[in-house]
């Protein structure tokens, strides 16, 4: 990212090569529209090129996944949840997961850790992330009490974090 901040096109292309499938995948899964997913992917990366300082450090994959999700939610809701094109400003904190641990985490490990979660925990987490819906809607759709949904989300995220830390150790 330091080289991208220095306006190095080759570094930016390398960053794009490494993460465009993640951004596109999130957009495609949330929007179910390949053209819209392409547009969103390009928009996210062009915005990053225009404003590389929006990334404050930490795990880049986690950060850009959140950016892609927010953009897709903007499209889904067809209104500005936040001003157009703005990056989340509270991400990338080193307080998230430890940076050195996160650096070792790869997509496959995350997917393996997610697959290892019980369905009752993984389903509301993925529904919440990709569906862009509230826990109330998740409770309604799954026929689960509201409090239970929130507890399962918390338990699932905790297990996910622990599994990722263990696999990176």
């Amino acid at each position: 990212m330091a080289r991208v901040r220095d306006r190095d096109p080759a570094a930016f292309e390398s960053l794009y090569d490494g993460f465009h499938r993640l951004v596109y995948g999130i957009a495609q899964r949330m929007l179910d529209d390949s053209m819209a997913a392409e547009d969103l992917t390009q928009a996210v990366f062009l915005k990053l090129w225009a404003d590389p300082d929006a990334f404050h450090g930490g795990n880049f994959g986690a950060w850009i996944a959140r950016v892609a999700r927010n953009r897709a939610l903007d499209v889904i809701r067809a209104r500005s949840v936040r001003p157009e094109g703005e990056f989340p400003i509270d991400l990338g904190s080193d307080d998230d997961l430890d940076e050195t641990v996160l650096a070792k985490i790869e997509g496959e490990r995350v997917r393996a850790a997610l697959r290892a979660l019980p369905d009752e925990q993984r389903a509301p987490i993925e529904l919440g992330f990709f569906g862009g819906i509230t826990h109330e809607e998740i409770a309604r759709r799954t026929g689960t009490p509201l409090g239970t949904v929130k507890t399962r989300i918390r338990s699932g995220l905790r297990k996910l974090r622990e599994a990722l830390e263990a696999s990176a150790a």
Partner: protein
Amino acid sequence: MNGSSEHDEALLDSVAAYALGTLSEAEARDVAAHIATCAECAREYHDLRGAADLVGYAAETPEYAPNELQSARMKSAIVRHVRAASDVPPVTVPAPGSTPAPPPASPGAPVATLPVRSRAPWLAYLAAAACLAVAFLSTFQLSNVRAQHEQDVQQLTLLRAQVDQQEVAANEARGHLALTQSIVADLLAPGAQRFPVPRGLVARSNGRIVIALQHLPALPKGKVYQAWTLRRGAKAVAPSITFTPDTSGLLIVELPGSATDIAAVALSVEPTGGSKAPTTTPAFVRPLS
């Protein structure tokens, strides 16, 4: 939002929902305000937020992946934009108070004068306007066609380069596969000696030593894994090959040289290029007995 422990559990559940982004806007505002004043909830939020964001990786699968044409199209657009942005010369801003330079003019050039309005018929104006319109449209269409053509040529070049790259990669992969098959055959040979180590095993077979590991953590830039061997009677380990695992964390390598007098094998993380002696605590030291 106060802090009895029973209440805290419900609060912490809400904090998790906030980290995942599933609260309504009103609830999210309340939880955000609470986190700003509650250390326990702030800690929970920071603990879970990173994991919540990584859930996005669940979509990086073949089911939701762009096809090659889409990838090429997106990259072409991005690269064009980025390269164009990089080529734009810096804008010179005139110093405050300076007078803008006049446009260049040829010395002694005659001063243009407005023509005297003639009494041409309106039909002539109409014809001239039509000609201008046709000329404008033709120019516009021509530049569009040229732009499209240039874009197609760029895309074609990009696709050709990708195909070439893939062929090279495929050849490399075939070579690698043949080598790996030979190593795996050694691993599975009936007379092979297998020595378990964390995340895998070390095997000695047909006079060769093979290390097979899985889920090996990726290393930061500038670091590699390095194998070490201890020969019988030696008092110090000798450096062997360096390597990095593939993207899945899988590693199968054969150590160079004869395995007959190797008494132990070790593995450590070293700077790229390797070291003459281990500089970090070995991940394992495995006696081959």
